[in-house]
């Protein structure tokens, strides 16, 4: 009924300071919840992308190779030490899943980038690779073939254009998305055959030629664990089967960050639940007081024929308007805060190796709507009980104002 809704609205206007405080509190609460949920989901998604797309569980390299374990990816520093390309396949180790061999050669004067830049030429086996190609952000509409290169996000050469490497023309087949990992950002990727074909063009220092360029040799393997297998099992199996190899697990650093983020997310979740709980309690306490204060008015309305449902409805509408407005403001506040801190957040997460990706718009809108609906629901629930209790009492008792 319009008059009762009007009455509810005007009651809010009658106590401006109190209404303002209520709205502000709900705005803060739902703002935190909305922002928390959105960030949590974004980070969660980003992590999933970071870890599953790049998702090697361990790396097998020659003993003595220098390794560089970044947060999100294991990379092997270019080295002259090599392993046989089929050494792991031959050993057929049950605890291993996919195995991606890589050849890495670091060269200068290649014609790519500045004159003195060192460039990592990285050979992959397209059929077995699972850490590079999933990162392709754009690519030509065909299979990778000889003479094609894939560039890291840090290299600014358009798709399909020609790239000279040691004077030999190559075609830019694809470009990777941002991974936050140096080798990936700056690397030039190609098939083993394409890399090996460069051997003749490279300037030679004496007779030495990078060992990784030899057919049948690789710099190392990125390895995925078989489902259910542990890193420890795999490590022992590899070490006993392959002589002269070293196994690098990212476990400590990877799980450290995962756990850190998981703890952070759980903290946010706990905060959110707490926030909502305290919001509900606050609204309910506040509305108990409001109902008590407005007893006379409720009694009067009852006396002139308002039904209980109408009285309860009026109080609930009042609460829902206040908390709903609070919810809307909270979401607006959250959007503002996320905009303001977007850059530093993205930068920070990038630094720890999580390439940050915002939740997509439809989901963000859904979260915003959920936050507003939840805030309104808290208002409705908070007002419902005190209003229902008051509405049960005799009109005369309410009017007289005695308990």
């Amino acid at each position: 009924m319009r008059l009762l809704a009007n009455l509810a609205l005007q009651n809010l206007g009658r106590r401006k300071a109190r209404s303002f405080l209520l709205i502000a509190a709900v705005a803060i609460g739902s703002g935190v919840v909305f922002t928390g949920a959105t960030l949590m989901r974004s980070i969660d998604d980003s992590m999933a992308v970071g870890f599953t797309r790049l998702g090697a569980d361990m790396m097998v390299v020659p003993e003595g190779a220098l390794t560089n374990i970044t947060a999100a990816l294991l990379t092997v520093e270019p080295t002259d030490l090599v392993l046989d390309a089929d050494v792991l396949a031959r050993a057929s180790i049950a605890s291993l899943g996919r195995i991606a061999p890589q050849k890495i050669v670091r060269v200068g004067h290649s014609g790519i980038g500045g004159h003195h830049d060192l460039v990592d030429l990285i050979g992959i086996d397209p059929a077995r690779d699972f850490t590079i190609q999933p990162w392709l952000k754009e690519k030509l509409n065909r299979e990778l073939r000889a003479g094609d290169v894939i560039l890291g996000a840090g290299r600014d050469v358009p798709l399909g254009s020609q790239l000279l490497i040691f004077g030999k023309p190559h075609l830019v087949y694809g470009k990777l998305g941002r991974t936050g990992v140096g080798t990936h950002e700056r690397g030039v990727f190609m098939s083993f055959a394409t890399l090996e074909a460069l051997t003749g063009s490279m300037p030679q220092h004496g007779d030495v030629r990078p060992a990784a360029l030899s057919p049948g040799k690789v710099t190392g393997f990125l390895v995925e664990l078989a489902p259910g297998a542990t890193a420890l099992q795999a490590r022992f199996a590899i070490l006993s089967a392959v002589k002269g190899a070293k196994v690098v697990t990212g476990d400590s650093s990877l799980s450290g960050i995962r756990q850190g983020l998981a703890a952070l997310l759980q903290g946010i979740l706990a905060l959110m639940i707490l926030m909502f709980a305290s919001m509900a309690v606050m609204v309910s306490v506040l509305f108990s007081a409001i109902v008590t204060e407005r007893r006379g008015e409720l009694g009067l309305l009852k006396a002139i024929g308002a039904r209980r449902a109408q009285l309860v409805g009026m109080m609930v509408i009042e609460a829902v308007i206040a908390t709903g407005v609070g919810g809307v403001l909270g979401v607006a506040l959250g959007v503002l805060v996320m905009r303001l801190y977007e850059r530093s957040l993205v930068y920070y997460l990038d630094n720890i190796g999580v390439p940050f990706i915002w939740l997509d718009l439809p989901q963000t809108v859904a979260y915003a709507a959920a936050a507003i609906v939840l805030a309104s629901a808290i208002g409705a629930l908070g007002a419902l009980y005190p209003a229902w209790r008051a509405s049960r009492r005799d009109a005369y008792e309410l009017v007289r104002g005695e308990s």
Partner: protein
Amino acid sequence: MLACRQVSKSYRTERGIVTAVAGIDLDVAAGRFAAIIGRSGSGKSTLMAMIGGLSRPSGGTVTIDGTDLWRLSDNALSEFRNGKIGYVFQFASLLPTLRLIDNVALPAMLGRRHGASGSYARAAGLLERMGLGGYLDAYPSEISAGEQRRVAIARALINDPALLLADEPTSDLDEQTESEIMDVLLTINREVGTTLILVTHNLALAEKAQQVVHIANGALVA
């Protein structure tokens, strides 16, 4: 039209049970003007509230036009109060955030009998009859206490009640205003035929009633 049978009310308080009304039998015929008199604290307001459907009796029955009030469901009782009973309180009882016209129209809107435009037209007519035609859009705080009481009477009349209950409606007003308000109530009783039950301290006024009910200590005084 009104029949009370052994109606009683006791309150549970810290000092034990207080009996405000102790078994009253009362009949008022349709169209009559009845005055209830008695000392302060004798139970007049409690009796009126039980007659008006505002306070559930501890015992006994209240029957209005054949309807046993306190056997109705909560919603039915609300509807009954809304349609059959007009109540003028002892104190200012307008909703401060609503305009006078809204205050008067409210019971009609709650009852959904006339529709919004019909309700507002009736409300405007009633306010005009109360001499407040120029204040339809005013708020209660902008008019005097006597005028507020007239608005409350207009509100009580909006649904054409069969029974008009007024509990010391003028106790906080000056004599001049009091007699004006009383004239309004008596005119309605006489001209429209609305049954009027009035609680008053004013014995001169009570003498005008066709029936005087004297209460002391929650019981009738013969």
